[in-house]
């Protein structure tokens, strides 16, 4: 395969530059596409005017049959995934259920053509966890705690609030919400 002719090459350069316009629009309107010519923007986490930095965080409380209890970190729970993925998977899969979920149209042409896109919107809105996710959680906890039978897991969401004037940083925890998952 050869690219010949200066005009074709000039057009290629122009196309690469012009591609930035739809890419910026898709990113702003929906979320970052892939593949895309982009690098991480790290735009969300900043100190506010009072010098407070707020980080959304989670810890997982596991209740076992017979009354035992254990705290498992999200990193241990999702250790099979690369560490860069874990926080986002936790947020998407195990956030507190939305009080008023968006209406996601399931029988439209868009849903037929792009089922993955529609599914990704549904998952974040579900009140109860998908049975597959529940089953995966149960199996995962059995691997982590082979000598006990898990009865339920609670994802406790909170905000770590740091103030830039405190050195070294000390977090104040502000609760956000919980998601409880029971295993019958």
């Amino acid at each position: 395969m050869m690219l010949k002719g200066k005009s074709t090459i000039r057009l290629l350069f122009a196309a690469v530059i012009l591609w930035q316009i739809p890419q910026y629009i898709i990113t702003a309107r929906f979320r970052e596409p892939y593949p895309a010519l982009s690098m991480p923007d790290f735009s969300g986490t900043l100190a506010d005017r009072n010098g407070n930095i707020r980080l959304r965080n989670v810890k997982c409380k596991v209740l076992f049959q017979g009354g035992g209890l254990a705290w498992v970190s999200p990193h241990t729970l999702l250790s099979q995934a690369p560490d860069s993925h874990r926080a986002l998977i936790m947020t998407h899969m195990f956030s507190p259920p939305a009080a008023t979920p968006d209406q996601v149209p399931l029988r439209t042409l868009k849903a037929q053509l792009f089922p993955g896109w529609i599914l990704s919107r549904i998952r974040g809105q579900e009140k109860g966890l998908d049975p597959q996710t529940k089953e995966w959680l149960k199996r995962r906890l059995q691997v982590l705690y082979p000598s006990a039978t898990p009865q339920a897991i609670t994802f406790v969401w909170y905000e770590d609030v740091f103030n830039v004037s405190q050195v070294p940083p000390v977090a104040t925890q502000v609760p956000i919400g919980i998601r409880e998952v029971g295993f019958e």
Partner: protein
Amino acid sequence: MTTKWESVDHFIFEEYKTKASSLGIYRIVFAAYVLTYLPRHLWIPSFPDSFFNPPIGLTIFFTGFPGAPFFYAVNGLAIGAAVCLLFGYRTKIASTSFALLLLIGNCWAYSFGKIDHDITLIFIPLIMQFAGWGNGYSMDAKRHALEGGRQEETTAWPLALMALIVGLAMMTAAVPKAASGWLDPHSHAVRAHMLYNVFVTGRSNWFAEHMFRIKSGIFWKFFDYSAVAIEAAFLLTVVRRQAFRVVAALACFFHLGIALSMEIAFVGNIIAYAAVADWSAFESRAGGMLRVWNRMLGGLSAWCVLGGGGVVAFVYLRFGNPLQFPQAWDPLGVTLCLLSSVVAAVFLMGLLRDWFRVPSRALILFDGFCGLCNGWVDFILGHDRRLLFRFAALQSPAGQEVLNRFGLPPDFIDSFVLVEDGRVYYRSSAFLRALRGLGLPYSLAAVFIVIPRVLRDQVYRVVAAHRLSWFGRRNTCRVPTSEEAGRFI
């Protein structure tokens, strides 16, 4: 003087010209790195389809993840392609295959909602195959030589395109940062992200802990501003290879800082910057090693490479890559960041040494009627301890002859002109080079040369346009005094 379109063509077709041997070394470096990076996607089947959360892209047409055999096949073939790339066997097929296989695997890996920004590792083989990176230190080159066929020539535009892609990609990081408040004096964005990495992502380390003890707002804001500046600088310097290299070298320190404090090693970026590096310097230092490599290529058959690729793929898929570490801390990534910073430091020091090497003679042409220009000439005469500079008014016969020799128009009076080592400089470049020739402390101002010329010249143009109204005009062209006569031509 060139037109804008000629400048664009120069950028695309000339600016990034490189030798085939340099590209060959770069191909080996790239392939060696990706063989430490694969396999990537074998963890995906441990999650059910309910975790499927694809971005807008190739996987939105699906409802879940493929099974484990798919990912074993994709990674096995990608490892085989990387081995072929290493030895330069069927380089174009290997480059395209590797890029597509990595893209396919990544599309599924990033369908959990998180995108790792290693897209450059896909673009590099896709683009560099057109540069002719299979023409040096490769089995393909040996085969062409044996068959007496015509080898494809090395072309510059793929390197220019690679530089443009890096510039555009880095700009997508700079723009949202600037728009979301990174430049706000109160935002402490780097500090917030380090806290996120330690407390949410769980990447606690010695460097982060020690940096958190620093309270100074200036210290933290320095990182916020420099992150935005370095990311934006790639695109601003893309048309000048040497300036782009300087930005890439500075970015290596930036990446080392991120690798040490946040444990995120953007090695994919560093490998992309390495595309524009001058590998001939390495070639001259490691000539013996490269000769051994070439001899080895002569003894290799296609079956050796394909069989070797198969063995590597089997070992990696069966037992894991011995160069990958199970824990989050990535010693290989940090080592590569450290190594790239050492190379960057050597490159920058060499550049500084060349920059501060003062030429033996230089000629300054100036507007003989302009008050500012004459004041500037007086300043140089007063501080030129080495008697480096000679002068001529632009309007004088000698000045006109020099303008003519360098293809500048006779009415070129909006800038003073510097002729140094047979090259002509004007506007801000001439101004900074003249300061460099005066020695310390004035030569320190020459550091502003790192600012893209288009920005420097804009400032120069504003001053030049108003110089007569601000600083006055002489009624007669300057005539040197008897003391100055020896310095004027």
